């Protein structure tokens, strides 16, 4: 009797165990089936994670593409220049998020002119909030030197925060891989993407500088900050990369600050004597036109900067800024 009970218990135990064994085998088999890979890994980068930077530009208005304000006070000249193009309200709608990308490339004091002027940046931030009724303004860049030092020493970090903007410093996870359609260099390359992902408008702010390799650094070269990875490799073909950057980034508005122009020893400068006061500030929806006018302040011609022609050929903008009938104004 006991033996029979024993046998029953044993059989039950056995079946339970067998069942568990069967389940383990099924799990092992299913996992193997789901993950089975006959082809093996591919050599290159995955395509699935590629992103595309959106188009931030606004409706074109004849005669209100480019404006040039002359004066020594940046706050006044930028107000005037933007007013001439229809005011900030044309560019920023109430409730929108705006990203401002100034040149914060170096940990350099503002008076050396190697980075965008902090008061200028603060004024644009202020305009976005007060007149544009923006919900949020972020100020960001991916500098060459250490980001925190750059934002601090250039004064832009403090000025932007004081005006109410959020300063976004670059971090590894904010970069995503992109490929530019029609690009030869920007292929499967990481760009500083995340801060611009959920933003409605993009404004670039750059000083006019001489650049040893490129000839000049203005609004188009300003977008170099969006490149990640070991981006200095692109210096081997600097004109093509600048043209491709202009193809990739379609901003709402760019501000080109020629109040004090770095004539020599660019892009880092280093001495006040490198600067020449030109008291000119350009606002434009066309980067190529802005740079084409800006280069004259460096005593250069359009033909001295091959990237301008390349960008024009790619239909990014026009080097013939006169045809856009830029509006001039003087501010006392």
């Amino acid at each position: 009797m006991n033996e029979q009970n024993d046998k029953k218990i044993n059989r039950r135990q056995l079946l339970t165990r067998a069942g568990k064994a069967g389940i383990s085998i099924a799990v092992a088999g299913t996992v193997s089936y789901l993950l089975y890979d006959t082809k093996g890994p591919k050599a290159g980068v995955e395509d699935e994670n590629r992103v595309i930077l959106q188009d931030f530009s606004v409706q074109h208005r004849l005669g209100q593409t480019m404006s040039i304000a002359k004066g020594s006070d940046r706050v006044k000249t930028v107000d005037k220049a933007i007013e001439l193009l229809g005011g900030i309200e044309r560019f920023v709608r109430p409730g929108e998020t705006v990203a401002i990308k100034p040149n914060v490339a170096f940990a350099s004091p503002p008076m050396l002119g190697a980075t965008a002027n902090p008061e200028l940046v603060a004024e644009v931030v202020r305009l976005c909030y007060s007149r544009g009724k923006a919900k949020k303004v972020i100020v960001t860049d991916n500098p060459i030197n250490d980001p925190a030092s750059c934002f601090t020493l250039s004064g832009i970090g403090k000025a932007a925060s004081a005006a109410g903007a959020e300063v976004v410093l670059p971090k590894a996870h904010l970069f995503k891989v992109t490929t530019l359609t029609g690009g030869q260099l920007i292929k499967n390359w990481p760009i500083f993407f995340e801060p611009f992902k959920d933003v409605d408008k993009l404004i670039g702010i750059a000083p006019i500088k001489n650049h040893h390799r490129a000839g000049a650094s203005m609004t188009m070269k300003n977008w170099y900050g969006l490149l990640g990875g070991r981006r200095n490799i692109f210096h081997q073909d600097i004109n093509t990369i600048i043209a491709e950057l202009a193809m990739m980034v379609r901003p709402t508005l760019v501000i080109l600050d020629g109040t004090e122009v770095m004539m020599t020893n660019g892009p880092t400068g280093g001495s006040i004597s490198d600067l020449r006061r030109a008291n000119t500030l350009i606002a434009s929806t066309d980067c190529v036109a802005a740079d084409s006018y800006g280069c004259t302040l460096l005593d250069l011609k359009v033909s001295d900067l091959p990237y301008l022609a390349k960008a024009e050929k790619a239909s990014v903008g026009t080097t013939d800024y006169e045809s856009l009938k830029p509006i001039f104004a003087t501010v006392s």
Partner: protein
Amino acid sequence: MKIVQARRISQVFFFILFVWFCIVSTAGEKLWQLRGWPVNWFLQLDPLVAIGTMLTTHTLYRGLLWALATIILTIVVGRFFCSWVCPFGSLHHFVGFWGNRKKSTPQKIQLNKYRKPQCIKYFILIFFLFMAAFPSIAASLQLGLLDPIPLITRSFNLALLPIVDRSVNLISAAERFYEGAWLILVIFFTAVFLNMVIPRFYCRFICPLGALFGIINRFAIWRIGKKQNECVNCKLCEKSCEGGCEPAGSIRISECVLCFNCLDDCKENIISYQTQPSLAGEITNPDISRRGFMLSLASGIFAIPAVRLSNKLGSNWYHRVIRPPGALVEKEFLKRCIKCGQCMRICPTNVIQPAGIDGGLENLWTPVLNNRIGSSGCQLNCVACGQVCPTSAIRPITLSEKLGTGAFAEVGPIKLGTAFFDRDRCLPWAMDKPCIVCEENCPVSPKAIYTQECFNTIRDGILTVKKASSITIETIENNLSLDKLATGDYYCAVEGDKPRKIAANTGNTIVISSDNQFEKIPVPGGKIKIQVRLQRPYVDIEKCIGCGVCEHECPVSGKKAVRVSAEGETRSTDRKLLLKH
């Protein structure tokens, strides 16, 4: 036939098969060469390789499906692999038996007691599995370090076989060298000789594969156990117990390796292999404490991020880590390489070597090219390494992909790196000595090494003319060595005239070749320069594929005057030298 006899035969069979696979891993068509022998079969049967790569890459690569068979069989019958198949286990079994055979029975029973440190292998397993499993922090496959199949494969292929073959040269025509393989041999022999202390030392205390089996065998349909609870307690069953699982009492199923020695030794016929749990009780769970588990888990999670603080995968990468052609980008490579050494074994030029830790701790025993060793750098028309890699850490590329022909003509050839000249050591650059061995041996077409001619005045090479004819000059100075300038590399340059090749010389006379006579006879009292014609080599970095033949052939044999480093390797975008259009 006794079951233990079958087991012994099985052990011998698989051990011989394993050794045979090691022997035949030379590319070729003879019966004792590679042909179609499935030399990766043991690695493919190893579930740790499959599970490790599944955790790091979320795929189960092709041939590793064999591991499913091992897993299923273990789930059903128990840890058969350890006693019946594993060649490392069989080795331990034999050495443990041989080393302890003269001991008395009570001593042997004592040796085979269960010991608490047998839980260490579970911690090792957990440590390595968690190291592999966390992708957002860092996933790295380091199981290969202690996984027994890669371990014994490396030990045989990189250490034992080369030593044995050195004298007979049966497997390889030339001696094979593997840098740092002494360490592999030390570890191997230590593991083997520890069996003299405790039998199956490695299996009981260290082996993570055994640990894995110990975890999944809990639902086995059949297990070793006693048919009745009462017995004479002679403990003979534990005399030859291989697993240290104590079948006399509550048998520890997770430790039992199915050697069946207990079944054979029991005189009362009480031990059997049965569906019923042992009537003396059984313990299915491995004896690991929660504390130990958490400790190994935490270590596993932190280990790789800690190692990667050195940034050896980022900008601080080590330039001498030149991977074989077809290797994946470094991060992905480290997720798949099990350090088995098959690629090193098959490489016909012996250039693939086990790395040290210069490139980071994770680099240990991964394949890197050392162009100083072997017969010629990476042979141009060879893609053998990728074909034998069991996990596709090195992809099985075609020759077409390697050379950039056919369908791959747009992409171009695979570059392993770029050669850089050390102009301070190169003979024509620094020593005024002609040499273009590198250019001659560059295998690509057009060559990636090109030369530019230059004439340098040799030391003490400015001489004064005493008298001259159209083909001879006698100098006032008399300190040239007889015919030293007659090699065809030396030229005589008179002021205002081009250098003319010297055909012969004595202490004070120079004879130039007759087909190139002086147009204007040199004036006595005038100065002439003895110049050496140098062809100075340059690397065309667009053409250089980093194969290392130049480095291998360079006659400056200590620190080579041209060295390949991994800049420009095509597998990585961030190590590019050139922008490609």
